[in-house]
């Protein structure tokens, strides 16, 4: 059973659960009707998740990713609350930064886009596919490298939970390269083309 079939069945199950929850009953008729609607929807709108072959699932890392996501959301709210209440001129230096990403699977990318928007001070403005670059609007822009590191941190968490080992190593290598460049005060290095 390929990963795509598993994903499709998972989608049908989830949609049927939602159907039953909204209808507030789990009688046989409701479940069957829900399943029919779910299957019809899954066939009509196939998921564009692309190639699912690189997906791993590590439960502990997955839990850590979700907790981290929630923690980021709370921190983001604290930052926003501070910016609204406190003398706002003191903190706000908005800017738009282009961040090239370590290539990753479509699933990781979609989760990453959602997660970055919920991270303190970052918001996705544009996504470019070939090569993979994000344009990110930042509320408090201190250093460009800081933004890159923030995105990488989120990406690392997601790849650790759902991505192949090779991508995880590539992300770590990129983090190291950025930190090294920051030590010397040099500009942000280009993304090396070593990941297949």
């Amino acid at each position, binding site marked *: 059973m390929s990963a795509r079939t598993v994903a499709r069945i998972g989608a049908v199950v989830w949609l049927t659960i*939602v159907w039953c*929850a*909204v209808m*507030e*009953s789990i009688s046989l008729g409701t479940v069957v009707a829900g399943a029919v609607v779910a299957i019809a929807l899954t066939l009509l709108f196939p998921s564009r998740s692309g190639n699912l072959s690189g997906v791993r699932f590590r439960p502990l890392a997955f839990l850590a990713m979700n907790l981290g996501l929630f923690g980021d*959301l*709370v921190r*983001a*709210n604290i930052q*926003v*609350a501070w*910016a*609204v*209440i406190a003398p*706002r001129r003191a903190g*706000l*230096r*908005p*800017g*738009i*930064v*282009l961040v090239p990403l370590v290539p990753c699977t479509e699933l990781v990318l979609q989760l990453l*886009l*959602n*997660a*970055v*928007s*919920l991270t303190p*001070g970052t*918001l*996705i*403005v*544009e*996504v*470019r*596919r070939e090569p993979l670059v994000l*344009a990110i*609007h930042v*509320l408090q*822009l201190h250093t*460009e490298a800081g933004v890159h590191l923030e995105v990488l941190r989120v990406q690392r968490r997601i790849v650790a939970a759902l991505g192949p080992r090779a991508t995880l190593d590539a992300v770590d290598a990129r983090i190291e390269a950025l930190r090294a460049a920051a030590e010397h005060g040099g500009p942000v290095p280009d993304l090396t083309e070593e990941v297949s």
Partner: protein
Amino acid sequence: MSTAADVVTSILLLASVTLVLLACIGLYRFDDVLSRTHAATKSITLGVILVAAGAALQLRDPGDTAKLIIAAVLQMVSAPVTAHIIGRAAYWSGTDLSPDTVVDQLADADVDQFD
């Protein structure tokens, strides 16, 4: 006579409503659309999650709790997408950026490379 659930619900509801109020004040305090989008979407997302948690404690019917969970998950998934689309639309339709904007690397990049 208030039970523990009542106290927790009260805290959650007040926190949620405060976040929503801050988001709406943020619509005025920030200079440009992109910054306002930060405040609106992040605060409101957490606000919906908190109010769903608070209301779930008060409801007697488990079916209602399922609906609240679905609403919270839906909000958490859709808010970043809304923020991105509004931000992208605002940027490409030429709204003025805040006078504090330090860097705008997007303006230098080629326009045709974005889909």
